């Protein structure tokens, strides 16, 4: 090889890599400006304003969760401000993008606490990112509420201590397992059940464990207990095994990407039994993957249903529809509720002092919101009802409400 040729090749490799680096740098600088753009609106300091920060997944892997919560929260703040604000003070919303990464979530929490000096924060949508902000919340004594972080260890540490300043608007994972088990025993009269859980997620394992405990307490038998790993595509062999155990109900906690395929393949194998999952199923992609017909006779537990006939819920659905021209999903509703949860506490505390609000949040009782009426228990978890939805020809239909 001649030297000239080597040089040429080196030059082309260098050029290519610098192009790639340039492109990457371009991406990150864009994101940088968008997040600072959000905070720059909060420059004008004034005591007539209550600042509520939101540390959310606005880009990255689970951007749809974070953006939904942001939309819901914005609607709530708009309504509160239009009605005169909290004790005469307007709410200023300070959203920050954590890029769906836990390190960024911590950074965003520090920024909200130290630069923006917010009164309260909405914590990230996923449990892992929400946990990453807990320490900052405790350290700066800023009441922090996650709308949708359902893992128990968001509010309760492994050693049993409670994160004083961290709360949530959603119910916790084990509760959904219990609701599903009771629904199977009472409504569907299932005796022999199978469990097919995602082995790679704590969420699914937690649900499977609480479901199993409750169904056995109800007198049911678990005839098959199988697991899959995320990103699998072929579930037929395990489903055939489950089919031969002849269950009359199958519980499948997991996320829609795999569940869609599991439901499709189960029906192809002639499994007619009702299938049930939890809020991890809730995505339009599920219907595309499984097909509307295969999804008949499947149920999920969820935080709320836009089909719920209750008046307040229909009012919310209408208002949301008018602003965003789409039907609100559970994340929208939880984001909306989170703001009202914080507002209620600030009003009862009568001040914007972090510790006073924290105390008020912990003492919340019978607060009526879109996703249910709840009281906060000693572990900072709301005790509230869950909604059971049924898929009918690819559309979620309200089935029933289950109280804890």
């Amino acid at each position: 090889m001649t030297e000239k040729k080597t040089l040429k090749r080196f030059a082309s490799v260098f050029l290519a890599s610098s192009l790639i680096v340039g492109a990457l740098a371009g991406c990150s600088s864009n994101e940088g400006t968008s997040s600072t753009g959000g905070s720059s609106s909060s420059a004008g300091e004034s005591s007539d304003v209550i600042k509520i920060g939101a540390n959310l997944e606005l880009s990255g892997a689970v951007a749809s969760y974070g953006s939904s919560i942001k939309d819901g929260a914005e609607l709530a703040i708009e309504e509160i401000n239009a009605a005169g604000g909290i004790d005469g003070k307007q709410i200023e919303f300070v959203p920050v993008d954590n890029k769906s990464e836990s390190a960024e979530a911590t950074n965003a929490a520090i920024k909200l606490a130290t630069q923006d000096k917010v009164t309260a924060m909405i914590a990230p949508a996923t449990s892992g990112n929400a946990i990453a902000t807990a320490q900052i919340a405790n350290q700066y004594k800023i009441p922090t509420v996650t709308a949708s972080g359902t893992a128990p260890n968001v509010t309760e540490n492994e050693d049993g201590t409670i994160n004083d300043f961290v709360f949530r608007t959603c119910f916790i994972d084990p509760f959904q397992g219990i609701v599903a088990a009771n629904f199977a025993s009472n409504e569907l009269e299932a005796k022999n059940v199978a469990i097919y859980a995602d082995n790679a997620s704590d969420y699914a394992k937690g649900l499977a464990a609480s479901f199993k405990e409750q169904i056995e307490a109800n007198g049911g038998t678990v005839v098959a207990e199988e697991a899959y790993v995320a990103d699998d595509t072929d579930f037929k062999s395990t489903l055939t095994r489950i089919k031969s155990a002849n269950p009359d109900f199958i519980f499948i906690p997991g996320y829609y990407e795999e569940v869609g395929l599991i439901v499709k393949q189960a029906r192809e194998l002639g499994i007619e039994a009702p299938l049930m999952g939890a809020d991890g199923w809730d995505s339009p992609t599920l219907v595309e993957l499984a097909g509307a017909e295969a999804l008949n006779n499947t149920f999920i537990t969820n935080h709320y249903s836009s089909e719920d006939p209750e008046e307040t819920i229909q009012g919310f659905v209408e208002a949301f529809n008018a602003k965003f021209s789409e039907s609100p999903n559970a994340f929208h509703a939880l984001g909306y509720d989170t703001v009202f949860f914080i507002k209620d506490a600030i009003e009862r505390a009568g001040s914007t002092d972090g510790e006073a609000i924290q105390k008020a949040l912990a003492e919340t009782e019978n607060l009526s919101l879109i996703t249910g009426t709840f009281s906060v228990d000693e572990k900072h978890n709301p005790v509230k009802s869950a909604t059971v939805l049924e898929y009918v020809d690819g559309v979620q239909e309200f089935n029933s409400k289950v109280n804890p």
Partner: protein
Amino acid sequence: MEWIQQLVNGISLGSIYALIALGYTMVYGIIKLINFAHGDVFMLGAFIGFYAIARWEIGFFPALIIAMALCAIIGVVIERVAYKRLRNATRIAALITAIGVSLLIENVVIYFRGASPEAYPEVLPETSINILGVNISSISILILAVTIVLMILLQFIVHKTKIGKAMRAVSLDPDAARLMGINVDNTISATFAIGSALAGAAGVIFGVYYTRIEPLMGVLPGLKAFIAAVFGGIGSIPGAMVGGLSLGVVETVVSALGFSLWRDAAAFVILILILILKPSGIFGKNTREKV
């Protein structure tokens, strides 16, 4: 009945592995390169088929043919751009380039359309045929039929046509083949074209059968197909078919016994055992069949 059902499941899975494994084995046979970008050509095939069906609203067979044709072109381009200039370089250099091409393809696709999965539209009427308690979906029968037809076609090309003869000659000895007047470069390109077309076909079949496609979907099936090719004897075409089908059945049996979490591990244990006990694979001795 459960076991017959499991066998049907295994053969459906295995025929996809076999189609991908053929491309690995053909390329290895001719230039001794493990083309790690092959799994990503499979992914591209799935996406080409998806866009053809969803955007242009054409049927399964036209989409299959478009995906195969475009993948053949992509395969040739990859070979001409990335591998041709490395033909006399060390094998490790070519191997690392293959991994680089693989990452490049994955990330270019993610860059342009994001990493979220896509659901294949229903192009084929879905009915389950119940034979003695065994449910066989019409799609799996069709897939098996398409796979068998493609394999027969491949055997025909390799053994009965001029280009097939050239491929076998180049595989035996490229220098001697060149002396005999065979255009070695074109023959290698043809091998890449055929192998990539098969991967493209496997991609469309995978999409129709399993519904979910995403930019990183080629990684694991690609590795499994590589195991299948080694299992059957890398470089051997019948070996790739037998290896693919066996691997599909083995994985299914492992799940059927209740060890579903060990399924991927079982495939890699097979790879390790084969490499220790019989590195040439089941059909490895059959050097005259090499392509």
